[in-house]
Each structure stands twice: as structure tokens, then as C-alpha cells.
């Protein structure tokens, strides 16, 4: 039974539920306590020990149902078609006897045992299916069955032809059942392994090459990243909360002890909440990437309290409220189309955008603000207004520029990146999630 539960844990881990060895032990203990008689109770017990959040519970229920689904042998009506006058006692191998006697429970047991022997939980790629089918068949003793067929077809007793016929049909049936079984196990174990590979692959892929269907997955990856960023960040801040000794308060509080200082009181240090202003380019030249920049922005918004978001193209507009008002899909669509936001999607004009920013929002930039600019700095040969970026740089704690182009292209053609560079605390290429992750790491380390 332990093997079965361990396989279930493997399947769960693959589907994204994090399970530690100690939790596996709990599950084993729980299962032996409640027993395997009642499916519902067993499921509840395992769910309590293994799945530790609401989403994990949903994954668990789904996985449990698939894992303990009946195989082909146990569904009634799927018995091998038997020849009435076949003689089980003529055969040698236990497998042939089970087939001829229609012993479904025995077959099912044999198959699962063989599957465990073959380590079915290790299946990762669809190309391995045939291999596992063969391994399981061999484990069940298909060789003995073949020998029986061969031997009986040579002998010519009266009942042999019928027995041979029944065995051949039985072999077909067996193969089909094992194939279905492996198919289902593949869906259970491999879907998860594929997922991990896919995640890894997407991280290094250029954002501009991603396809529509990957957006969802990408959103999850980014969300996870931002969350870990924020977790680390906020924890560091709290650790350093106690400030200097508050002498006045200490004396007052300790008057009761004849002025002896028993309980020192500390000044509370102000918590340095991350304060951010993000300027995101949504023009056509960065269209493919801007969606992900916005996705990143959306996730940041969910996690950080104090963040102001702006988008710009020919001019600039504040869009912070959009993130709170709409779910992610709709928010992104609105932002990219720019409808009703007061942003003009004509020629990209960094100069105008910076002028707008200076006029309306420069006041809000304080010495604790991090300004994050996402864009390719391609200004259509307009005035770059580097002076304003200089002003922002002077007021803000730091200016970070993320450019989807790689550094050799900076400053070529209408790119003004080289002229903006002196006013950036940090300028990095950012064209894949991997890059984004590096920037986030930098942000965390330097706060």
C-alpha cells in the first residue's frame, strides 16, 4: 500500500502540489488509521495531510479521482470473449489460466504489480509508452502465454484449436487493456513533468516569440516571481523595525520601578515601503514585448501597495486605477488599445511623454521612489528631452531602464538609449522572463 501512496504523491508533486517527505509520512499514517474501505473518507484524510491550500485541494481531488480510477479489467462487460469449450487445465502459465477463467481481479492485480515493477511513475515522454507497455506485459508473464499458444497449436488434441483461439483473443484483449492503462498513467504522471519542462523553456524564450496560448502560463510564472520578490522584500524590512532607544519614553514607563530601567523602550523605525513609479512604452515597435511588461506590471500591482503606473506612446497617461478595476485579461486589452485612457497611439514620442510626466507627476517622485522605465527608447528622431530624465534621476532614489533590445543595438538608428544611459542607475536588456528575474533579484538585493 505504501508504494501506491508514494506513487500518488509523485503524481501530485508533478501537478504542482508541494509535498515534503514528512507530509508523505503523515499521509501514510492517516491512511492506515482510516483504512481503505471508504473512498470518501480516505480522500478526505489524504487531502487533509497532503494538500495545504484551496487550489492544492482542487488539484488533489482531481488527481485522486484519476489515480484511483478503475482499470479496464474491473469495468464489467470488458471480459475477454471466451470460447466455451476452451480448457484452462491444458495451459501452463498462470496468465493463460487467468485469461481463460476470466479472472478480472487477478489480471488487474497482476497488471498493477507489473506496473510497479516497471516503475510506471517514472514515465515522462510519450515515446516511452511502448517501452512501458512491453515491460508490463512481460512482467505479467506474457512469455508464458506465448509458449502456451505455440505448444498447443502444435499438439493436436480435440480441444486445442478452441483453446488456442481463446488465448489469442485473450492476448489481444490483454494488450489493449495494458495500453489503455499506460495511456492513463502517462496522463497522470507525465503531464506534470511536461509542465515543468515547459516552464523552464518559457523562461528563456524571447518574449516577442511567445504565442497567445502561452500567455496564461506566463502570467503564472510572473506572478510566482513577483510574489517571491515581495515576500523576501517585506521580510527584510520588518526585521529591521526596531530603532534607537527612546529615552523619554523609557524614563516615563519605568517611573513605576523607582526610575530603575527595567524595560527599555525603542523608537519605531519607519517602514520603508517599496514605492514605485513604472513608465511603460506601449507603442507598436515594442508591441510584442509590451504585453509582458504590462503583465509584469499587473502582477506588481497585485503585490505592492504603493505603485503608480503610466503608459505612454505619443503622450503619457496614468493608468494605476485600471489594474484595480479589471481582471488581468481585460486590463491588458484596454491598456494595449489605449481606448478611453487619454493616451494617443501615434508616433512614439519619448520627449512628449517626459514633458507630460514633468508637468503632472514629477512632484510625486520622492527620494524613496524607484522609477522603472520599460521601453526601447526609439524616439523617431524627435527631441529626447534627456534633461527631464536627469531631473527625475536627481529626485528619485534610482532609475531603472529595461530595454527589450540587446545592448549592441542601443543607440543605433533612432534609438536614444545611449543618451538616456547616463541618467539611469541601471539599464538592462530585458527580453525574456529569465532577464526579468535577474532584474528582480537586483532590486531585492539593493533595497
Amino acid at each position, binding site marked *: 500500500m505504501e508504494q501506491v501512496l508514494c506513487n500518488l504523491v509523485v503524481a501530485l508533486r508533478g501537478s504542482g502540489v508541494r509535498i*515534503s517527505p514528512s507530509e508523505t509520512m*503523515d499521509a501514510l499514517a*492517516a491512511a492506515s*488509521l482510516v483504512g481503505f474501505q471508504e473512498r470518501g*473518507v480516505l480522500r*478526505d*484524510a489524504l*487531502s*487533509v495531510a497532503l494538500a495545504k491550500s484551496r487550489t492544492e485541494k482542487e488539484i488533489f481531488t482531481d488527481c485522486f479521482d484519476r489515480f484511483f480510477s478503475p482499470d479496464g479489467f474491473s469495468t464489467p462487460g470488458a471480459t475477454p470473449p471466451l470460447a466455451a469449450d476452451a480448457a484452462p487445465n491444458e495451459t501452463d502459465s498462470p496468465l493463460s489460466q487467468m485469461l481463460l477463467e476470466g479472472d478480472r481481479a487477478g489480471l488487474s492485480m497482476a497488471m498493477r504489480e507489473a506496473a510497479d515493477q516497471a516503475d510506471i511513475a517514472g514515465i515522462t515522454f510519450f515515446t516511452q509508452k511502448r517501452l512501458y507497455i512491453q515491460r508490463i506485459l512481460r512482467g505479467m508473464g506474457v512469455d508464458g502465454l506465448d509458449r502456451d499458444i505455440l505448444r498447443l497449436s502444435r499438439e493436436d488434441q480435440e480441444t486445442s484449436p478452441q483453446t488456442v483461439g481463446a488465448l489469442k483473443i485473450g492476448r489481444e484483449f490483454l494488450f489493449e487493456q495494458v495500453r489503455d492503462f499506460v495511456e492513463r498513467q502517462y496522463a497522470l504522471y507525465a503531464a506534470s513533468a511536461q509542465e515543468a519542462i515547459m516552464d523552464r523553456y518559457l523562461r528563456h524564450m524571447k518574449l516577442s516569440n511567445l504565442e497567445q496560448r502561452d500567455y496564461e502560463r506566463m502570467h503564472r510564472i510572473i506572478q510566482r516571481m513577483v510574489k517571491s520578490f515581495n515576500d523576501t522584500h517585506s521580510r527584510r524590512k*520588518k526585521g529591521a523595525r526596531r530603532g534607537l532607544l527612546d529615552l523619554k519614553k523609557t524614563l516615563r514607563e519605568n517611573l513605576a520601578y523607582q526610575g530603575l530601567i527595567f524595560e527599555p523602550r525603542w523608537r519605531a523605525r519607519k517602514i520603508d515601503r517599496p514605492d514605485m513609479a513604472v513608465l511603460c512604452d506601449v507603442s507598436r515597435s515594442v508591441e510584442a514585448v509590451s504585453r509582458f511588461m504590462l503583465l509584469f506590471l499587473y502582477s506588481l500591482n497585485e503585490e505592492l501597495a504603493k505603485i503608480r503606473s503610466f503608459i505612454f506612446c505619443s503622450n503619457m497617461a496614468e493608468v494605476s486605477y485600471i489594474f484595480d478595476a479589471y481582471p488581468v485579461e481585460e486590463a491588458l486589452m484596454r491598456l494595449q488599445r489605449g481606448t478611453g485612457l487619454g493616451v494617443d497611439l501615434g508616433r512614439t514620442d519619448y520627449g512628449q511623454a517626459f514633458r507630460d510626466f514633468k508637468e503632472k507627476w514629477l512632484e510625486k517622485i520622492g527620494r524613496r521612489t524607484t522609477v522603472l522605465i520599460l521601453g526601447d527608447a526609439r524616439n523617431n528622431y524627435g527631441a529626447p528631452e534627456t534633461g527631464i530624465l536627469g531631473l527625475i534621476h536627481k529626485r528619485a532614489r534610482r532609475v531603472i531602464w529595461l530595454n527589450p533590445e540587446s545592448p549592441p543595438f542601443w543607440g543605433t538608428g533612432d534609438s536614444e538609449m545611449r543618451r538616456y544611459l547616463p541618467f539611469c542607475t541601471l539599464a538592462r536588456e530585458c527580453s525574456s522572463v529569465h532577464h526579468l528575474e535577474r532584474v528582480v533579484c537586483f532590486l531585492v538585493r539593493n533595497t
Partner: protein
Amino acid sequence: MGLDNQRKFGAIQEVRRGFQDVGYVCSTQIATTLYLAHHLQKPILVEGPAGVGKTELAKAAAAYLDRPLIRLQCYEGLDESKALYEWKYGKQLLYTQILKDKLADLLEGTEGLADALARVHQYDDIFFSERFLAPRPLLLALQEKEGAVLLVDEVDRSDPEFEAFLLEVLSDFQVSVPELGTIHAVSRPYVFLTSNNTREMSEALKRRCLHLYIPFPDARLEREIVRVRAPGVPERLRAQLVGFVQQLRGLDLKKVPSVSETIDWARVLMILNARDLGPDVIRDTLNILLKFEADIEMVEGRLGEMAQKVVR
């Protein structure tokens, strides 16, 4: 006592019946969890929307086990001195003052500073003994001889540091007081932690707990809850009011009515002597279920059809 509890947790159905007797109707899921928590000696982390009876579950457990309930309400800034123990500074000070005269007697006949110090050293621990220790909820729960039910309420509100500190208590049922050493539980308490999910709890904490998610009950279970908690409500009305609340939960409200509000509503309807759930009765008492003006307005608009659905 131990034997008694073994009997009380003999079977899952037994637990379920027992909790019903103390006024808590639980689903099989909850009963299974309680059963496992007793036998595996693990804390239960209870999550779920507000007002589904998370805290109530701990109270019921205390009543069922006939043990004291020790409650620790968490909030931001909660620290060891409020949760675990504190030295009684005032008492220590007072005693040193009273015993000042004794000091002279004590040191009589000593020669030199080193000798005097050595003599004082023989007594140095008296001011840091259990006599001067003010136990807070966690320590109280460990010291309870017959075992206690410990409820750590809304643990998601506490700081991550406090959460880390809880780990020692929850996994080994012991705490370390630097001056006294490690204090072990006299008898393992039955621990509940509740969380409203305002922040994700750490992996380490979750690993040490059984995790129970209590969703809003389905109609059948909720009818049963109303029957137990508000006896005297006629069966017909009970079905109707539960049906109405279940409908409300399906709407896009700012705050959906909780189970406790259903029970309150049932009691109010009983006091008002309502026989049937008509639109008028609902309109007059809607503020018991809904706590936002916008929600009330929204529901009032479609009261007629909703009421009709349940009365039928």
C-alpha cells in the same frame, strides 16, 4: 481521562455524533480531520471564508473533550512576551526591596567581595524562577495538566517572525525560556490555528499541520446547522431561509452572508413569528444578512423572484 478520549475518538462517526451533541454540526471532512488530528497528534490549520465556524470548531472541541479552551488572538506586532511568558518585573523589584535587609544577614561573616559574591550566587536563581513567571496563552496550554484545547486565532495576522516562533511550539510542544531551560508539555494540547488567508502561511508551518478547508456548507448541511443552533424554527421556514441564503451566496456581493448570520436571521424570523418567507419579511430583516448598503440595494431589486424561488 486518556482512556475517555480514546473512546471519544474511537471512530469518525463517533466524533461526528459527539460534536453534534455539543452543538456543532460537522461534515465528514471535518470529522475525519478531527479524528486524524487526535491520533496523529498534529495541529489543525483551519482556513475558509469568514463566519463558517472556524473559531466555533475549537470551542466545540473544548466542550466535547471537556478541557479548557485557551485562546490566543493574533495581531500584527504580537510577540513572545504576549504569547508565551513574561517576567513579573514589578514583583521582582518589590521582593528585592523587601529582602534588602535580609541581604545583610546573608552576607554576614563573608570575607572579601569574591566570597560575598559566591554566597549570593547560591541564591541567584530565585528571582528567575517560575514564581516570577507570568505565563501567557501558549505556556498556559503546555502547563495544563489534563491537556487543553489551544486556539491560535487568525494566525495570518501575525508577523512572519511570530509564525517562525510558533514552529517550535507546534512540532515538539515545548518552549525554551532562556532562564529556565526547555519546558515540555505536561500533556499535549489539541491545537487549532485559524486563518482568513489575508496572507499565505509559510511552507514550514503548513507542513506541521493538517490542513482543513471549510467552505460554505451546502443546503442540506446548513439546514442541519440551523436546526441544531436555532431549534424551534419550523421545518418549512428553515428550508426556505436556507434556500434564500444559498441564493445570496451565488450573487456578486461585497460580503456574502456567513453561517453565523444565517443562524441570527433564523432566530430573528422566529421572534417575529414569521411562518413563510415573503418579500416583505425579507425586506424588513435584510440588514441582518447584508452589511453593505450597495448589497442591500442590489438584492432588493430582485427580491420578488428570489423569494418566489424558495417559497415554491
